[in-house]
């Protein structure tokens, strides 16, 4: 094929590219031949270079990214425009990461008459003054225990003790944000005017606590204002044995109702997250609260809980009111009768109280209404669903096997793995 082409070329005194292309030959072969044959022809290939590199300066490039037109600036653009970064910061021309010295390029080529070869430069050279640029994380990580209820939001987070008043330092106090929201009102001049409203609770974990709501145009200002206001509204709550409330009670604030139950030591806080935070600040460790109605209204939940705690009757007050000894029976102490309060006058009244008159569990619910407690069927989960019931039967069959196996292992009666394999083989 190549030979035939050469013949064609020899016949034409002035061969052109178009004539070559028009011959039905494979293009690749064709161009190779051209390179060989058309040397005397003056022909330069003009190629379009699409890259901007080398055409514009760094400054021009940065301008394109960072600058905003005047008209745009008036409209508020460019507020979040990027800033210029010195990409060469911490670098020196001619010195790379590996620290190699290229003789004649980055160092002298000759020492005396001896030619140097490529060598390692000592790294003991003075380190670059400016460290290389590190990209800053936009959201620095918050330790898990310092986070609030959700994400990077304020509610649930601690904002430290209140500011000291004159010489008085609030030692041992802590403040937690319960609610943090934007509120607005309309003005004739400015239109919708936004402010931040913050509800915080402050206390020392020993029964002293207060809460306050404050508003300010800036969030930090609102928090500070609320914190210091809460510090001036402290109330003291008596706690039973420093761990729980004195009795069950229900309390209602508008459409928010709380059913608070006294719990034994070790139970923990089982309640609305806001109430958990308040309990931690007051110093209550064991509690169960059922919240009903508008539980998202944090201000009402807080108000109701504080009012409920304040209106409690201590055991001593109860003993004085009924003129009888208040006696506690605890299961872990073998139901031993332990008097927790005696009448202050020194002796009780003579006639005893009947059991019907006194039901400590439901004594403090108002209007004779007591919360409905439904009996829970422990088998409910299994009996309703045939699949679950089948699963239950399987579990039920093997329910003691784990413990039995553990006992066998302890006493060395469990067969070895080899033994088990042997047993599993069919009998012959």
């Amino acid at each position, binding site marked *: 094929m190549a030979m035939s082409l050469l013949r064609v070329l020899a016949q034409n005194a002035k061969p052109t590219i178009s004539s070559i292309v028009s011959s039905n030959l494979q293009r690749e072969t064709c161009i190779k031949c051209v390179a060989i044959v058309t040397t005397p022809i003056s022909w330069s290939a003009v190629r379009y270079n699409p890259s901007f590199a080398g055409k514009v300066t760094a400054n021009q490039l940065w301008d394109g990214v960072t600058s905003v037109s005047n008209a745009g600036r008036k409209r508020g653009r460019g507020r979040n425009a990027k800033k210029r970064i010195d990409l060469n910061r911490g670098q020196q021309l001619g010195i790379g990461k590996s620290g190699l010295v290229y003789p004649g390029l980055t160092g002298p080529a000759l020492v005396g008459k001896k030619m140097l070869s490529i060598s390692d430069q000592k790294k003991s050279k003075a380190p670059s003054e400016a460290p290389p640029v590190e990209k800053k994380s936009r959201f620095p990580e918050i330790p898990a225990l310092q986070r609030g209820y959700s994400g990077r939001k304020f509610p649930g987070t601690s904002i430290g003790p209140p500011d000291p008043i004159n010489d008085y330092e609030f030692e041992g106090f802590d403040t937690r944000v319960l609610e943090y929201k934007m509120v607005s009102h309309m003005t004739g001049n400015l239109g919708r005017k936004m402010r931040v409203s913050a509800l915080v609770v402050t206390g020392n974990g020993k029964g002293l606590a207060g809460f306050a709501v404050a508003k300010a145009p800036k969030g930090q200002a609102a928090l500070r204002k609320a914190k210091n206001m809460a510090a001036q509204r402290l109330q003291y709550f008596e706690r039973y044995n420093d761990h729980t409330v004195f009795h069950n009670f229900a309390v209602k604030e508008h459409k928010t109702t709380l059913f608070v139950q006294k719990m034994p030591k070790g139970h923990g806080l089982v309640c609305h997250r806001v109430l958990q935070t308040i309990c931690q600040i007051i110093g209550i460790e064991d509690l169960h609260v059922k919240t009903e109605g508008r539980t998202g209204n944090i201000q009402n939940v807080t108000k109701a809980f504080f009012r409920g705690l304040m209106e409690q009757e201590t055991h001593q007050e109860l003993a004085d009111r009924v003129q009888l000894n*208040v006696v506690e029976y605890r299961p872990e102490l073998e139901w031993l009768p332990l008097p927790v309060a005696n009448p202050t006058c020194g002796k009780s009244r003579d006639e005893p109280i009947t059991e019907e008159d006194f039901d400590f569990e439901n004594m403090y619910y108002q209007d004779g209404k007591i919360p409905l407690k439904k009996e829970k069927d422990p088998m409910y989960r299994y009996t309703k669903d045939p699949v679950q019931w089948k699963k239950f039967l399987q579990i039920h069959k093997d329910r003691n096997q784990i413990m039995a196996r553990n006992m066998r292992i302890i006493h060395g009666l469990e067969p070895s793995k080899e033994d088990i394999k042997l047993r599993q083989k069919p009998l012959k």
Partner: protein
Amino acid sequence: MAASIPFRSTSSYSTLFTRLANLKVRRRSFAHTSKALCASSEETPPSSSNSDGRDPFPVFVDNKVQHLLSNITGFDILKIAGPHKKHLEKPKYRLLTDAELKGEMTKARERLSKRLQIPPYMNPRKPNLTPLAVDPDLAQFDTSNYVFTDVTFGVKDRDRTVVIREADGTLRIAPWDVRDRMNQIYNPREGKEYLKPQMFDEQNLERMISEKKYVYILDRACCQFEPDDPDFIRTTHRVYRAIDSAGDHDDLRSTRHFGSLAFYLVWHKTADSLLLDMLNRDLSSDAADLVRLYGILHPQSACAGVLGQLSPDSGSTAVVQVYIDTSSTLTSELQLALQAMDDAGKGHRSGLNK
């Protein structure tokens, strides 16, 4: 009678059963043996640990001794009730008049005083190896032994008849370990395990003693063993010795084990550090009771002789002084402690919670 043998559908089953268990013929001998079982602790030779070779059990059950032991145990009602691990439950509240409260407290004290029953102090039991009957016709009847257990309702574990027909045709009273296992099978007790817990192995026991879990070990031993079980005696005595050497006598006060501890120490004439502990805690009446106990347990000793001559209304200091003069090994320390107690003028106060 029920037998732990598999059911056989042979016509001669009942005859065979009767013959294996030998019921009718040997009924009398059973009665005799079960009595012998109960009395075995009295008949068995005393343990080698005591030099004068007496059986401690009759002395222990003596009313005077029991009274003294319960006196020195103490009665701290909160410690007896003690916080126990339980499922969380709400406390209950009642409003009581003074009279009602007093009644409730008395009832609770009565209820809890049952917790302080002192476990018997006995010598280890001996195996009974004499065969009840030998029936050569039954030899090689089966390759296994047959155990027959009396499961009549109301029979106590210690009185239960358990016999064993061996493969060679011998009928004998079942060994102790078999009896214990049969009792646990037919009359299971809460807290007792079918196999001996590894806690009571020498190595594990030492570890628990070093952790000072005295009351736990002793409680568990009471649950698991009979009081004349050699394991029970070994375990408890080891714990008593550890407590005495560590001076942790107070850990057992107001528990059922304090009486046993005191009895063990006095029986082995090593109660000096316990006495010192009592004097240091100003428990003078307890100290006097301990010395009186010494007099009863060792009637031949010089201390008992002098105590007998002492007038019955003499003070506790005098009683303790007799012991220090006659039988003590820590004379100087005891003398000092007694003097200090007298000087402080607290000599008349009795136990902490009496």
